[in-house]
């Protein structure tokens, strides 16, 4: 299959079930919401080393937030349900609580599985905190030097999908980067999806384990590393001299699929030889995103 002259390989991306929460961070100005969100989602690229994965989902206009101020929504994922509240409590406590003017609301209010995040963070108030119920949702007001930090008592947790991906195989590094940027641009703001890596892009795709070091959980994906074409069992087609990967986490498979479609289409530009995807033979992750099947489906991104 060719798209804009780019070969879409007959393979699939293999993804995992994760636990996801959605946070709405608001602030006096968009800038301070973003400062908090960037810190919150910083160092949250891969569960392998960060214990969580997170990213900014989209920017929110004042009319779309609970308190009528500008904000951002963030998706936050972990591999298991026990660790999600722990990571959230650590990170919100250090990055949002600390950030001027921000507030933190639950973005999955209808989900029955509730995480007592604000309920735990209230202890920072040292007994001076106060709760407030508005409608049927409870918030905690935690007194701080600036004034008050407001956080919702509980956050919804649902099953999500982590590790959706595709690989951009390009003739040179410049073409690969331009294609990756175009793909990220096309996917940005897509509901239900975040790209946890720097700028949404990974240059160091990995394989499971190591050929040499027993203790390494993940090591370089030598099959797609162009400098190793001659010394390893390379999977790189001829003429490919640089590969970049896009990794997607999301609230559900449909969102990932829809975002991948947009991203791959945008990535198929001059200088790109092929689009591939990472998998483990289909035995590890329950979610399989077949590239050709995705691109044949012409569905628009799901409405929020």
């Amino acid at each position, binding site marked *: 299959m060719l798209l804009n002259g780019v070969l879409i390989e007959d393979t699939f991306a293999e993804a995992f079930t994760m636990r996801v929460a959605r946070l709405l961070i608001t602030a006096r100005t968009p800038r301070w919401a973003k400062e908090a969100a960037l810190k919150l989602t910083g160092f949250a690229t891969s569960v392998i080393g960060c214990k969580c994965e997170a990213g900014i989902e989209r920017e929110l206009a004042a009319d779309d937030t*609970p*308190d*009528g*101020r500008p904000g951002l929504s963030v998706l936050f994922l972990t591999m298991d349900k026990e660790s999600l509240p722990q990571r959230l409590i650590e990170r919100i406590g250090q990055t949002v609580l600390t950030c001027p003017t921000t*507030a933190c609301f639950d973005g999955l209010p209808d989900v029955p599985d509730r995480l007592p995040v604000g309920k735990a963070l209230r202890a920072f108030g040292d007994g*001076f905190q*106060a*709760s*407030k*119920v*508005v*409608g049927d949702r409870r*918030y905690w*007001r935690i007194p701080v030097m600036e*004034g*008050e930090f*407001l956080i919702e008592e509980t956050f919804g947790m649902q099953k999500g999908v982590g590790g959706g991906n595709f690989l951009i195989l390009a003739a040179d590094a410049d073409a690969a980067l331009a294609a990756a940027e175009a793909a990220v641009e096309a996917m940005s703001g897509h509901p239900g999806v975040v790209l946890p890596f720097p700028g949404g892009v990974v240059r160091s795709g990995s394989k499971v384990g190591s050929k040499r070091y027993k203790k390494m959980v993940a090591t370089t994906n030598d099959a797609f590393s162009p400098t190793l074409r001659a010394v390893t069992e390379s999977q790189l087609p001829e003429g490919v001299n640089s590969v970049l990967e896009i990794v997607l986490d999301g609230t559900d498979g449909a969102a990932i699929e829809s975002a991948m479609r947009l991203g791959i289409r945008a990535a198929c530009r001059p200088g790109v030889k092929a689009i591939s995807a990472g998998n483990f033979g289909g035995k590890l992750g329950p979610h399989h995103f077949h590239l050709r099947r995705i691109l044949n489906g012409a569905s628009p991104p799901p409405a929020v």
Partner: protein
Amino acid sequence: MSLAFTLRTPPTVPLEAEVLTPARLAGLSAPEAAKLSVVHGNERADLGEFFQVQGTADGGGAGEFRLTGDLSRVKHVGAGMADGRIVIHGSVGMHLGAEMTGGEIIVEGDAADWVGPEMTGGRIVIKGNAGHMVGAASRGSAVGVRGGEIVVFGNTGNEAGHGMRRGLVAIGGDAGDFAGVSMLAGTIVVLGSLGWRAGAGMRRGSIVTMHPVELLPTFSYACTYAPLYLRLLLARLRRLGLPVADAQVSGRYQRWSGDAVELNKGEVLILEA
């Protein structure tokens, strides 16, 4: 159609009509509803002696019914109701929605004293004025409203929110004296002005007012700021139909802590002019 009650013979003394709840009327025909027993003064009487009843109650669970006329001597309407809806075209008497746990009561008129005492859930909306003891604890009880919302578009009398522990009392007009007296927690918002001794003996909770007020000496000024939760709260009041101004949403409020004779964990928020 649902049941409709029109007051035909106004009671000369108070009529205790706690039978007027969606649950008690569920599935009844108009003649059956007219046979329900009420207490007129100190005598038993049939509902039909006072009301013309039309229609049939909504099938299934608790539905909706209407009351029309000057019901200012009809007490205990909707007392203890758990769901369903009552719409009253006219004024209504004391103990409206007392101890209700859910459902909704709309009054297109005034309400007498004791609106929603010790309610735990649901909503009461009074389009006119209400009397004393809105959302209060019954005499002797330590705890008043434990949940739910009471919205009065007009003014209220004294002791609104007395002893409340949770929930919301929102007053579009002025509140009388002792608003939030002995409140344990919860929220009282008064878009008009507060009377004397607001929050006397309050332990926790919030009283919000949009007009300057002189507080008891056991309240201490803390700071002037824009409490974020107020944006949520006022947005909620707007959705409930109260005329909240933008300046109130984005305004800065003086925070006063009190009551120091109790826990001192309560607050009175006063909008800065």
